[in-house]
């Protein structure tokens, strides 16, 4: 097990190098160049040379990449072009907010999806099953920005309720924080809930028709034990795989949701960076999110061994 984790961590290295290279190469595609973007019409040869030196753009590309990645590894993502503030501490403080949103979204998704998926499989082709399947399909198909807009409209028109605009941290005032976060987290979780529901249903159906389930039932095991200890546990691998993959779309989802609900998280920071052509911010945020996604996927893989002892990693 320890060897496996070490091997997987080593396997991460080429992927991480690849991610950073991809980001670096894409950044080179910027039409014109970064300095023209910063200076605009105030461009003079002297100012230009000064900025090129400051940003290290006068050096060869390989050196630029190595210098960027060398600093990034130590947590130095450079400074924002707009504010001059270092990017990394800003990413970390905003990440906490996005993580809260994403974790709440996951919890909502699991609370809704797992029981409904199991019930749907157990009562296959019943009215309940059909309703759950339609709900799951709706969950997968309704984009979060569309549902968010409709929910805001419904609350404003129906109840004259407006979600708080100014963000308050979790540890400042938990009540207000929850008031701000509950609706966005629920909407963020709804897309994940739809796909998890579908996967739980099909995975449970696959397991429930296995012979060992019949054997467990024939031995007189209570239905609760049959379903949770034998069927659900064995059907959980594909569900966990899906959840691991969904973390990525959840991160993408926060970009949209945070924008709609004015939540100052990592997604909003990324988008502001993109809109203001603040490249160190964009570069830093994209690198941070991609690395996070890869690490979360690795953790999910490691989690398999605890759930299914049959899996060995030789």
């Amino acid at each position: 097990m320890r060897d496996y984790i070490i091997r997987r961590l080593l396997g991460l290295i080429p992927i991480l190098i690849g991610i950073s290279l991809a980001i670096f190469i894409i950044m080179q595609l910027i039409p014109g160049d970064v300095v023209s973007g910063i200076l605009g019409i105030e461009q003079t040869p002297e100012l230009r040379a000064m900025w090129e030196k400051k940003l290290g753009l006068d050096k060869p590309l390989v050196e630029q990449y190595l210098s960027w990645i060398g600093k990034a590894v130590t947590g130095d993502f450079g400074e924002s072009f707009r504010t001059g503030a270092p990017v990394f501490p800003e990413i970390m403080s905003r990440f906490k907010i996005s993580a809260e949103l994403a974790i709440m979204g996951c919890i909502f998704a699991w609370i809704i999806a797992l029981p409904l998926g199991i019930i749907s499989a157990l009562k296959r082709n019943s009215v309940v099953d059909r309703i759950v399947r339609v709900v799951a399909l709706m969950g997968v198909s309704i984009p979060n920005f569309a549902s968010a807009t409709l929910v805001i409209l419904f609350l404003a028109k129906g109840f004259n309720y407006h979600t708080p605009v100014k963000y308050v941290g979790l540890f400042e005032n938990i009540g207000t924080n929850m008031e701000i976060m509950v609706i966005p987290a629920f909407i963020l979780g709804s897309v994940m809930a739809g796909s998890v529901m579908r996967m739980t249903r099909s995975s449970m159906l696959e397991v429930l028709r296995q012979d060992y389930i019949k054997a467990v039932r024939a031995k007189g095991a209570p239905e609760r034990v049959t379903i949770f200890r034998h069927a659900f546990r064995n059907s959980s691998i594909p569900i966990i795989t899906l959840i691991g993959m969904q973390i990525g779309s959840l991160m993408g989802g926060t970009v949209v949701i945070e924008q709609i609900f004015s939540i100052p998280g990592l997604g909003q920071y990324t988008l502001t960076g993109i809109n203001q052509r603040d490249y160190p911010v964009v570069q830093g945020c994209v690198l941070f999110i991609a690395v996070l996604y890869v690490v979360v996927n690795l953790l999910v893989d490691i989690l398999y061994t605890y759930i299914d002892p049959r899996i060995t990693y030789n």
Partner: protein
Amino acid sequence: MKKKNAPVRNRALPGNESLLRQLWSDPMGRAGMIGVGMIILLAVFAPWIARFDVGKMNSKARFAAPNATYWFGTDNFGRDIFSRIVYGARVSIVVGVVAVSIAAGFGYLFGLIAGFFEGKVESVIMMVMDIIFAFPHILLALFIVAVLGKSIVNTMIAIGIVNIPVFTRTVRASVKTVKSTDYIANARSIGLNRMNILFKHVTPNILAPFTVQATLALSGAILTEASMSFLGLGIQPPDPSWGSMLSDARKFMEQAPWMAIFPAVFIIITILSFNILGDALRDVLDPKLKL
């Protein structure tokens, strides 16, 4: 990185006529076909269906509620929302189809090469795919557009690139299975060259998973375009996009809720129809997976 397995097993695509008939006989398949068909009709016949010029502003008719002249009402510039929805369907379909064609074309090529030749070529291709896959979809698409600049072409390129890995993986998995079958061994033993085997014998047998993937990717591409346009980084004015219409509507939501409701409803119907059709197609092409 985990590998995303191909959603369907290998089966040749049945004849077009029988495929359509099978889809039509399934209630979900029928619903999907009707929904997708209607959106395509709107897109193709937009100039005949739209009642007004999409860009035509009318200061006297700003924020008009839905009525006999303006079926879906008007927006803050007095533009007819129905006409913009109709043209928005065209934008969605064109962006979706072009982006998926880019993804499917490159994905097919890379998947075929990786699956057939294996070895180092496969390792390199799959490594690149893993790297693209390591980025959340929308984030990578936004990043590419942020760098290349906002335009309809760059939106299509960005959405195309982020979808390449899923096609590569689907095709590669299918090619590997097909490659081990007897008829490919026979084709080799009678001395057919590689190109001949790849395009004449392997390709027809991987079309089923490929088709299902393309349908599902189309709904994903339309969704990504709408999300990007909603964030102001997709389709740019004056071209109508459902995503940007919905985004514009947020400022006037209480005053003119129809500005938000109609684009939202059309986005939902479109994505839902493609997903239903994709599910039904998978059931028809691979009944073993129908649970």
